[in-house]
């Protein structure tokens, strides 16, 4: 593991009687792209603002590049933290041109005119706005404003780059394109980044590591694949992907980390778990629709279960079926563009072995 670029330790923040951030600790390695993911009001933006110095933590410490910037009795103001930040509203100053906006961090730091111009032009070039410098900032489209905000955050070579839901005001197509560009740019510059969003698709695509927050706390953090496959709570499972989540009872532990469970509807399967699973315990069974497939009736496989098709939704590149599994609805995602099975058709449901997982009931 390379050097720690940003470390949060035991952060707490309350607004009035409401604690919005509770005991948040996090280490971000140099060059890492960390996405803080969570629903609105989970404390992710407040956490970001504390890193930026726009909010003062009630308790806890923050270090950037090894230097403590926030701790009891110590508070480095935002302008002295060497952080670049891209805001949700872009925060492009309407009374300045594109060039003036981007050059501003250099201007207030007293960088000479020639160097200022050189560096500003370089970074404008980097974000694909090479010739847009003299334009008034108000004449830009949403996507261009986003690039100006990014250029301004990059121009002073910050130690850390912060993003506060920067793509949420753009339309879907543009959002997807800028997401790719952003990731490529971060790879190229190697800048340590912390990115806040409520959009799991964005998080999964951008992140080296996702930190999921709920009600002011970090509930799980890990590689996107890990969060997807090994959600530790029902909340994470629901938030990362639209999974089948069924209340179930543990029947028996069959192997280390594996237990046999039965859903309320009566469906039985073996499922993985991290913590203990005692027989009789109520749990939630998580199965991803994309880990399942539908086979013709009578297909011989011990991973198959007889189901009836209840309905289907065509989703462009796949068909999402809802089938009755022991009478309870269950979603299956079948790739391809085959003609869908009509409701009432009998089929065999195959669940990829080892993919079912149990999480504690909340």
């Amino acid at each position, binding site marked *: 593991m390379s050097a720690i670029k940003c470390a949060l330790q035991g952060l707490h923040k309350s607004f009035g009687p409401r604690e919005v951030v509770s005991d948040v600790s996090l280490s971000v390695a140099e060059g890492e792209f960390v996405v803080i993911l969570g629903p609105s009001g989970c404390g992710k933006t407040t956490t970001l*603002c504390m890193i*930026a*110095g*726009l*909010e*003062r933590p009630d308790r806890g410490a923050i270090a950037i590049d090894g230097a403590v910037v926030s701790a009891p009795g110590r*508070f480095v*103001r*935002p*302008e*002295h*933290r*060497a*952080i*670049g*930040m891209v*805001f*949700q*509203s*872009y*925060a492009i*100053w*309407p*009374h*300045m*041109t594109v*060039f*003036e906006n981007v*050059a*501003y*961090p250099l*201007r*207030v*730091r007293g960088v000479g005119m020639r160097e200022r*111009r050189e560096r500003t*032009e370089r970074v*404008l070039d980097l974000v694909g706005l*090479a*010739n847009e*410098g*003299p334009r*008034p900032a108000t004449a830009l489209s949403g996507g261009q404003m986003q690039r100006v*905000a990014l250029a*301004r*955050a990059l121009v*002073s070579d910050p130690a850390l780059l*912060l993003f506060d839901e920067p793509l949420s005001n753009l339309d879907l197509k543009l959002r997807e394109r800028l997401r790719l560009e952003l990731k490529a740019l971060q790879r190229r510059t190697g800048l340590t980044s912390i990115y806040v969003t409520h959009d799991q698709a964005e998080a999964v695509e951008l992140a080296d590591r996702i930190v999921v927050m709920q009600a002011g706390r970090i509930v799980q953090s890990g590689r996107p694949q890990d969060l997807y496959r090994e959600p530790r709570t029902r909340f994470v499972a629901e938030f990362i992907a639209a999974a089948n989540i069924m209340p179930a009872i543990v029947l028996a532990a069959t192997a280390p980390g594996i237990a046999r469970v039965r859903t309320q509807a009566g469906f039985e399967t073996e499922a993985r778990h991290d913590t203990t699973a005692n027989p009789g315990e109520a749990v939630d069974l998580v199965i991803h629709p994309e880990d399942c497939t539908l086979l013709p009736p009578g297909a011989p496989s011990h991973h198959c279960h007889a189901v009836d098709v209840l309905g289907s939704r065509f989703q462009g590149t796949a068909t999402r079926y809802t089938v009755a599994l022991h009478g309870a609805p269950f979603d299956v995602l079948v790739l391809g563009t085959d003609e869908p099975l009509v409701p009432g058709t009998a089929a065999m449901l195959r669940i990829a072995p080892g993919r079912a997982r149990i999480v504690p009931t909340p």
Partner: protein
Amino acid sequence: MTPGRTLPLGTIGVGALLLLLAVLIVLPVGVLLLGSFLSEAPRALRFDWSGLTLANYRDVLAAAGFAPLLASTLGAALAGTAGAALIGASLAWLAVRTDIPGRRALDVVAVMPLFVPPLVGAFAWDILASPRSGILNIVLRAVGAPFTLNIYTFGGVAYAYAIYYAPYIYLFVAASLRNMDATLEEAAFMSGAGRTKVLLHITLPLAAPALLSSSLLVFVLLIELFAIPAVLGEPGNLHFMAVRIWDLIGFTPPQVNQASALGALMLVMTVILVVLQHKAASRRNVVTVAGKGQRVRPVVLGALRWPLAALGFGYLLLVVVLPTVALLFIALRRNIFFSTIAAILDPAQLSFEQFGIAFGDPVVVGTLWNSLAVSTGTMAAGVVLYFIVAYTVHRTRLPGRRALDLVTVLPVAIPGIIIGLGYLWSWISIPVGLYGTLWIIILAYVSQFAPQATRAIAGSLVQIHPELEESSRLCGAGFLTTLRLVVVPLARPGIVSAMILLFVLSFRELATALFLYTSGTQLFSLAMFDFWQRGSTGLVAAMALVQSLILLVFVLLGQALRRDRMADGNPVPTAG
């Protein structure tokens, strides 16, 4: 979220601001209230607590003229408010919601009287409609009309109130109508309601909160008003509270304590009304606020368009054209006595003599310089102070900012004449040499116009997204650099508006300064009022025109500055 929070001295700063505003605004009113319970002139530093008495209130309330005084003050204010509401709301509806010809122009016309100081308007109507020598009456007599106009009556005063205060109602109601979702009216049309029904059942009820709150505001302003009652009421033996307070101080010996008691009673009324107004304003109808992309389809007036347009522009004739012509006519005459149309039209009378006399008089010129100095001082001190206040209230989370907000709105409920009286008694006894200088007038004005200035600046500040400021901090700019390079340039329209307001309001103010000037610190509007009392109508007309011209130039200048938003900052570096 707010960088201002991290100011190390923030809390101390708020404390200092509160103290300053308390001295500026609360202290004078407190001294006046105290004085109303004393038997001798109140002193700010050494009170004679043993002399507490209710005698002043008894004397004021038991005085023979008190009932008619209260009746004419409240009655004229009420009638004036009703008239202003009718004119203002009708104009607003015509200009915003109908297809009346020239609706854009009407929108400009409707607010023009705001630039006519009440004192100047009163002079003009005195010239136009005084019972014997009024120009309109001479014309009426010449055409053999069986009646004459008399502006020196209850109706006359209420009329002047109504036409000069209609623009306040207009501004509120027009804004409310503009924000109104037009589909609400269209739905009523589709339900089978006609134009009149839609107006009565839908439009009017939706605009009611704005109409009510602006009417209450106008009512307060009219109760406080000094200039129009002093010029148009007194000659007809109609007495008003503000004028009465001035009279009491003018007695020998001055009845300071009775004046204070009367002032306190007036204050009780205005405070109650302002609280009511606040309630009405905060009960703004949320339903009427439409989302974006609304189409405003004007109400089709049909054959009524032209007569209604004539009525709308007739208002311009009444409040701007006619008075200006009257003032010009008097100012450009050699002899101000005339009784026939022939005498009115006599070209031999045309001359610039009055201007020559007025501005050849070093006293008049001195008062002009004094007024310019006071207004400039008020503008400079006020804009700095109220920028700091507005910024603290709206952009920081410092403790005490609510109190700061409250103190700056207080003067809405404090009549100018009471601020003047309070300043007189607080500073005449505090030995800092303030009394007798222009500074005391500047301070009184700075206090008096706190609400207007703060509101103008706050209006711009709250429109600046906090992230615009936060991003500057993250770019490495400190608090003051951010203020200078980001906040101030972006808040410029509000700052310029506040400067225009402070200058204009202080330049035309009369009542507040009545008790604060001495021989060396007389102001232009005070001199005008003085000349009018001595019957020098020609001089007054010339001075009124000059005052209006100065105000007009200043307002136009300010508006040009407001619009030019991109001129600030560094020259644009061109790439490549």
